[in-house]
């Protein structure tokens, strides 16, 4: 994969790269997290994160069809959050507004993504 992906002008889907920080990932900078979390604690941490993000986006920007969090270690995928809204306008509005919000002490980067079917979203 060349990783040169086209950025669509309109899309139902947006991506926020590197937003989720897995406590087990050594590059995590959040000092309140430790790598000694048990699997259950890690799952709870993830569930809370997912719920927090999902509810805020769904409430503020519009109905979400699907949301995925990448938890692998590829540089370009770590902690990426893909959100597919029901309506294109909602995705557009979310991208514009999220780029001017903070999240956990970091600025959010948001952009539209060409992904529409997550089962086909494999980089070839």
């Amino acid at each position, binding site marked *: 994969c060349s990783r040169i992906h086209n950025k669509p002008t309109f899309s139902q889907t947006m991506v926020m790269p*590197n937003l989720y920080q897995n406590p087990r990932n050594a*590059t995590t*900078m*959040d*000092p309140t997290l430790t790598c000694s979390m048990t699997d259950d604690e890690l799952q709870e941490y993830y569930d*809370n*994160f997912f*719920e*927090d*993000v999902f*509810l*805020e986006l769904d409430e503020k920007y519009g109905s979400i069809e699907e949301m995925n969090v990448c938890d692998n270690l590829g540089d370009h995928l770590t902690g990426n959050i893909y959100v597919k809204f029901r309506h294109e306008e909602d995705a557009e509005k979310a991208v514009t507004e999220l*780029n*001017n*919000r*903070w*999240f*956990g*002490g*970091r*600025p*959010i*980067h948001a952009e539209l993504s060409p992904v529409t079917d997550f089962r086909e979203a494999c980089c070839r």
Partner: protein
Amino acid sequence: PRRPREKRISLYWDIAPTGFEHITPMQYKALQASGQVPAIGPP
């Protein structure tokens, strides 16, 4: 079954990096782009 939960105060949303509460996220990203603050920093 999943029990309904009250909306809690978010741990993450709208939390600015310490010391940068006075600038906007867009301004902060410009600082990152120009190398004046680390690209990935601690909260």
